[in-house]
């Protein structure tokens, strides 16, 4: 564990159910989350990301492994004694309390004096710009407003880590975009570590300092959004985040890869046998027919404003997406034959 890490998760496993019916939800997960970091757990539903969050919150107990917050082992600590707070997917605002009573809930549990509670509630509501709604009840608020109150309620006790369980998923697209920016600003203002759970890869890339991509109860890759996008280490990660073309190839000795069509590429690798090559649509280039590494036919071209997205049919039957900037776009007729060149520096050799 490093000095700067706020949350330290070591070899945590968790199963639900008993005996043969038990389902392994988390498998030997380890991760360190740094101070003031915006850290995101990203993965499809059922990948274990929410379970990991609930383990940190204390709603579930780990079967194996250790969870520490600020160096303190909290593996067996009940949720009400942990210095973390949660923003729930459903907000879980108390319907019988007003907005300010909701926000003050944790502060009252801490037995703070009434005037101090009032000040802190005011500050928290100001942070999310909800001061004028202090006396309303949750039922009288819109989804976005409830979201803000839930944020204020979780921030008011000044947790060491704020846990956010898909907090934006119930909002419509426009509001979600607004809240994304606000979340980011809020984190900078509050100076608190955010642990964010989402299945939305775009949201993860926009917001996070670092992202952990999860699948089947394991963390596949941890890295900055740029690394995750540009240098995925797993086929799943590459496929899950953004559009990508996957090409089967044979690894030959001498840093050579042979494509199915027979073309060879010189790429540094230490693989052997069959491998998968990954390349983003915007990283491949159009070449003249007969040139390049792959031969294809134009099936469809979508005009995206700033770019053109070509859908190509490869000679061996596969599909290839190619994104071409509007600046250097030469019009391609539907059905015309083209070559595709794969710049070696843009290719990734993936673990299966």
């Amino acid at each position, binding site marked *: 564990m490093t000095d700067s890490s706020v949350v330290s998760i070591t070899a945590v496993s968790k199963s639900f159910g008993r005996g043969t019916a038990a389902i392994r939800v988390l498998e030997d997960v380890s991760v360190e989350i740094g101070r003031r970091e915006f850290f995101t757990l990203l993965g499809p539903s059922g990948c274990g990301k929410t379970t990991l969050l609930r383990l940190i*919150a*204390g*709603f579930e107990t780990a079967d194996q492994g250790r969870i520490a917050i600020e160096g303190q082992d909290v593996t067996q600590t*009940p*949720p*009400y*004694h942990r210095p*973390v*707070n*949660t923003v*729930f997917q*459903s907000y*879980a*605002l*108390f*319907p*019988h309390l007003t907005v300010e009573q909701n926000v003050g*809930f*944790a502060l009252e*549990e*801490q037995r703070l004096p009434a005037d101090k509670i009032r000040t802190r509630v005011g500050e928290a509501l100001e942070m999310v710009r909800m001061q004028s709604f202090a006396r309303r009840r949750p039922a009288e608020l819109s989804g976005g407003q409830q979201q803000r109150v839930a944020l204020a*309620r*979780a921030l008011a*006790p000044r947790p060491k880590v704020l846990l956010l369980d898909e907090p934006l998923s119930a909002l419509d697209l426009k509001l979600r975009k607004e809240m994304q920016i606000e979340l980011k600003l809020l984190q900078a203002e509050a100076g608190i570590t955010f642990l964010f759970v989402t299945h939305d890869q775009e949201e993860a890339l926009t917001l996070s300092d670092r992202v952990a991509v999860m699948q089947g109860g394991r963390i596949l890759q941890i890295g900055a959004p740029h690394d995750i996008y540009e240098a995925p280490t797993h086929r799943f990660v590459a496929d899950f985040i953004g559009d990508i073309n996957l090409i089967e190839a044979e690894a030959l000795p001498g840093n050579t890869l042979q494509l199915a069509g027979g073309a060879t590429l010189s790429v540094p690798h230490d693989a052997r046998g069959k491998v998968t090559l990954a390349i983003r649509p915007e990283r491949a280039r159009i070449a003249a027919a007969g040139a390049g590494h792959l031969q294809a036919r134009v099936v469809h071209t979508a005009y995206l404003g700033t770019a053109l997205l070509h859908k190509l049919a490869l000679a061996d039957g596969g599909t290839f997406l190619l994104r071409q900037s509007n600046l250097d776009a030469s019009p391609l007729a539907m059905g015309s034959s083209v070559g595709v060149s794969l710049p070696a520096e843009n290719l990734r050799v993936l673990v299966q």
Partner: protein
Amino acid sequence: MTDRPALRRLGLLTPALATIAVLIGVPLALMFWISLLQKGDSGGVDWASAPSLGNYIRLVWEEDFDGTMIVNTSYLIILLRSVLQAAVTTGLCLLFGLPVALWMAGLSRGQREIMLLLITIPFWTNLLVRNYAWLIILREDGWLSQLVNSLSPVGPVQLLYNDLAVAIGLTYSFLPFMILPLYTVFEKFDWRLLEAAHDLGAPRRRALRRVVIPIAMPGIAAGSLLVFIPCLGAFVTPALLGGGKTLMLGNVIQMQFAASRNWPFGAALSVVLLALMLVVMVAMAIWRNRRVK
């Protein structure tokens, strides 16, 4: 023809309204009228007597031998005891019913149905029979009496024919009326709110007090009303398990109509009981309205 739906609604409501009027309105009016009359020479009602408030006055004052009116507290005491007994029963039902309802809400669907069935099974048996069953359990050679007496450090304890026996019997009889509305609330309860309370630093008991109970308040109010109101008028349980020593309002009313054959006074007592229930219900409604605002 904009009033046609309204007209049709009235037509559809008429049978129900007529039933209520004939079966509830008329008897109530009759009871109120009788409460103002005098009892007949051989009991019953003297329909020819002049209406007066005499029966109501009798509840509090009685004529001394020299003709002066003195306060007679015996009916007031019975009234007070009835309210107290009903309140204690309501409290006991809440104490036992709340954990059961909470526990039931956490069961699987199939288990819940079985529990609901078990809770309603006692209704298949007549109330009188069930009270006799308690008589057997609580009397000196009953198993509960013997168990309690063998454990009691203060010598033999009398379980039957006292207020305790009445409280046990009433709690037993009315417990389902508390459990069912509470269960309805807890079944719909969003348990994530409990997690939120824990998350914000409230341990189990605090979360129960600050989140679960306030949200369950409509169920608690409904259950309390369903227990308190019929308890106030109960007469079978106090008569059997109280052994006639501990009278409740229901018993006095029953005595007026049967043994004493003083229908007008019994009717007056019934009107007072009804008024009492009405006061409780109105108070409850006002309190609940205030909470919503």
